[in-house]
C-alpha cells in the first residue's frame, strides 16, 4: 500500500465520523432554533390575542378561517386554570381543501378576563415552512458534507505528493545504490529541514557503506593471504620431504595422509573465500551466459572424471537457457549442483538432467535417504560422511542463487531432485 493511500485511508475514517457527528449536531441545532422561533411567534400571537380579547369581548371566539394560523377559546373553571401552564406541542391538522394532514405547532394557555372568567386559549400555527426548511437544511448538509469530504481528500492527495516529493526522490536514488559501486550524487533540492537532514544522512550512510564494503573486501583478501601462505609453506615442505630418498614407505604413507588432510583445508579455505566474495557482491561484471552450454560441457567433464563409477546420464530436455550473470559464478553454480549429483550417487547410478528456458533440474539416484530441507543449504551441514564433500557445495549454490534471484528447490521421490528456477 502506498503511503499516500495509507494516509488518505487513515484520514477518511475519522473524517467520516467527525463530520457525521458535526452534521447531526448542526441539524438538531437548526431544528431547535426553528422551534424556538415558532414558539416566540406563538407567544407574541398569544399576547396580541389576549390583549384584543381583554379589550373587546367580541374577540372571545374561535378563529378558524386562516389556514396559516387559527385559535380556539373556551371557558374553563378556576381550578382547571390554576393547574394549567403554557404548553407547546406539535400536532397535525386535517385541511379539507388540501385533503391531507398538515403539521402544526400548538400553544395551549389560559387567561382571565376582567369579569373574572377563565378561558383556555389554543393557538395553532402551520409549520409547513419549518418542514420545508429542515428538509432543505438536511439535503444541503448531506451534499455539502460529501463535497467537503471529496475536497479534503483531493487536496490532501495533492499536498501529500507535493510535500513528499523529496522522499520519493530519495527512494529512487536508494534503488540504484549498490555497495561497492560509485555513488551518484543525490540531487534533491528541498527547503524542508527534515528532508535536507534525510538527504545528508542517506548520502553519508551510503559513503559509510562503501567504506565498510571496501574494508570487508580488504579483510577477505587479507585473510586469504594470511592463510594461503602458511598453507603453501606446509604443503610445499611436505612435497620436499616426500622427495627425500631416505623416506621409508611407512613415512611416505604418513606424509601422504598429512598432505591429503592439508589439501582438504586448502579446498575448504578456497570455498569459504568464494562464499564471502559472493556474499560481498564482489562478482560485479556480468555477461550473457548459456546455462545449457555450460551444463553440457560440465556434464561431459564429470562423466570422464567419474568414469569409474559407471553412472549413466540422461539429458532429457535441452532448451536454450541464457541469463545475464557473472561467468565464473554461473560456472561455479552449475558445477556444484552437478558435482553434487555425481559424488552422492552410487556406482551404476543414474542422473537425469532437464533444461528448460527457465529451469535447470538435476535428478540423481543415491544410497542416502531423503535430505533434511532445513539444513540443506547451511555451511558445513554435511548429511553424509563422504571424504570428498566439504559441506560447502550447496552453501555456495545458495549464495549464488541469492544474488541472481534463482530459486533452489529440493524434492525427494526415491531420487534426489534439485531444481534451479531462474526468475
Amino acid at each position, binding site marked *: 500500500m502506498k503511503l499516500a493511500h495509507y494516509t488518505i485511508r487513515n484520514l477518511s475514517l475519522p473524517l467520516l465520523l467527525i463530520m457525521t457527528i458535526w452534521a447531526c449536531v448542526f441539524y438538531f441545532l437548526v431544528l431547535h432554533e426553528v422551534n424556538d422561533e415558532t414558539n416566540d411567534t406563538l407567544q407574541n400571537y398569544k399576547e396580541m390575542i389576549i390583549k384584543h380579547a381583554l379589550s373587546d369581548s367580541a374577540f372571545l371566539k374561535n378563529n378558524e378561517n386562516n389556514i396559516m394560523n387559527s385559535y380556539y377559546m373556551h371557558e374553563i373553571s378556576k381550578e382547571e386554570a390554576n393547574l394549567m401552564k403554557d404548553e407547546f406541542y406539535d400536532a397535525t391538522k386535517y385541511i379539507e381543501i388540501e385533503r391531507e394532514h398538515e403539521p402544526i405547532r400548538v400553544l395551549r394557555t389560559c387567561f382571565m378576563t376582567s369579569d373574572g372568567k377563565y378561558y383556555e386559549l389554543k393557538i395553532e400555527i402551520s409549520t409547513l415552512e419549518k418542514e420545508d426548511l429542515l428538509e432543505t437544511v438536511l439535503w444541503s448538509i448531506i451534499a455539502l458534507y460529501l463535497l467537503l469530504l471529496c475536497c479534503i481528500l483531493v487536496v490532501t492527495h495533492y499536498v501529500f505528493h507535493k510535500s513528499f516529493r523529496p522522499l520519493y526522490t530519495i527512494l529512487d536514488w536508494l534503488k540504484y545504490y549498490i555497495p561497492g559501486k560509485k555513488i551518484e550524487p543525490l540531487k534533491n533540492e528541498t527547503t524542508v529541514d527534515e528532508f535536507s537532514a534525510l538527504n545528508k544522512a542517506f548520502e553519508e550512510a551510503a559513503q559509510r557503506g562503501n567504506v565498510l564494503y571496501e574494508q570487508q573486501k580488504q579483510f577477505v583478501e587479507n585473510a586469504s*593471504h594470511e592463510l594461503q601462505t602458511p*598453507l603453501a609453506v606446509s604443503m610445499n615442505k611436505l*612435497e*620436499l620431504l616426500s622427495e627425500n630418498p631416505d623416506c621409508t614407505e611407512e613415512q611416505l*604413507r604418513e606424509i601422504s595422509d598429512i598432505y591429503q588432510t592439508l589439501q582438504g583445508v586448502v579446498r575448504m579455505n578456497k570455498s569459504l573465500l568464494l562464499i564471502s566474495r559472493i556474499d560481498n557482491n564482489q562478482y560485479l561484471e556480468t555477461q550473457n551466459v548459456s546455462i545449457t552450454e555450460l551444463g553440457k560441457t560440465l556434464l561431459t567433464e564429470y562423466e570422464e572424471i567419474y568414469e569409474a563409477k559407471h553412472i549413466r546420464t540422461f539429458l532429457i530436455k535441452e532448451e536454450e537457457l541464457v541469463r545475464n550473470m557473472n561467468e565464473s559464478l554461473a560456472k561455479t553454480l552449475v*558445477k556444484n549442483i552437478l558435482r553434487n549429483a555425481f559424488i552422492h550417487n552410487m556406482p551404476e547410478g543414474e542422473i537425469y538432467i532437464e533444461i528448460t528456458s527457465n529451469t535447470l533440474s538435476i535428478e540423481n539416484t543415491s544410497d542416502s535417504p531423503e535430505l533434511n530441507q532445513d539444513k540443506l543449504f547451511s555451511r558445513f551441514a554435511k548429511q553424509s560422511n563422504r571424504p570428498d564433500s566439504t559441506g560447502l557445495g550447496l552453501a555456495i549454490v545458495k549464495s549464488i542463487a541469492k544474488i541472481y534471484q534463482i530459486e533452489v528447490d529440493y524434492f525427494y521421490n526415491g531420487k534426489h531432485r534439485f531444481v534451479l528456477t531462474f526468475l
Partner: protein
Amino acid sequence: MKILIIEDEDKLREVMIRSLEKEQYLVESVATFQQALLKISDYDYDCIILDIMLPDGSGLTLLSELKKMHKKESVIIVSAKDSLDDKVIGLNLGADDYLTKPFHLAELNARIKSIIRRKQQDGELSLSLGNILIYPDKHLVNVDKEEVVLNRKEFDLLYYFITNPGRLLSKDALAESVWGDYIDQADSFDFIYSQVKNLRKKLKTAGATPEIKAIYGFGYKMILEE
C-alpha cells in the same frame, strides 16, 4: 638458467629455493620491493617469480618498472589474491603466468620450464626424456621416433611427468595439471588412477625407457632407468 625469487615470506622463499636448486637452476632471492628493484636493474635473469603483496610496495608496480626498463625477463606472478582483476592486470602488464597460493612445487616447476621453452625461440620446441620426445604445441609424442597416440588428458599428464622427471608428483598436483583449478581435485583421483594406468600401458607397449612408478598413497614418479 638464472631465476630470481621475489617473496617476502621467508619460509615459502626457502622451500621455493630448495625446490628450484634441485632442478639445477641458479637461484637468487629477495624479500622486499626495494631490494627487488635493485636486483632487476643491475642484473638479468631468465625468469622472475614475483609475489604481488610485498611489504613495501606492489609487485604489479615492479612489473611495470621491469617493462619500462625494456627487460626481457619472463615473469610468473605468485599471489595469494585469487582475484580475477589482479590476474587480468598482471597479464596485461606483461606477466607470462599467474599462480595462486598455495601451489604445488611441481606445478611451479612445470610453469617455469614451459616459459623458458617458449622463450628459446631458436631452440627446438620439444622436450625429451629417455627415448620419449614430445612437441607440446603440436600435441605430438614420439617414442623411438614412432608416434604414440594419446588422448588429451593422457598427453597433459605425460607433459607434466616429463617436465618433472624423478620428482614425486602428488595425485592433487597431477589432477590440477589436467583440470586446472576449475574442477575440485578430490573428484579426480579415480580418474587420475585410470588415466595413469592407460598412459603406462601405452608407453610400455611403445617401448619407452622412462617408467612411471606408483608411490603408495601419494602419487607417481617418472624414473629414467639408467
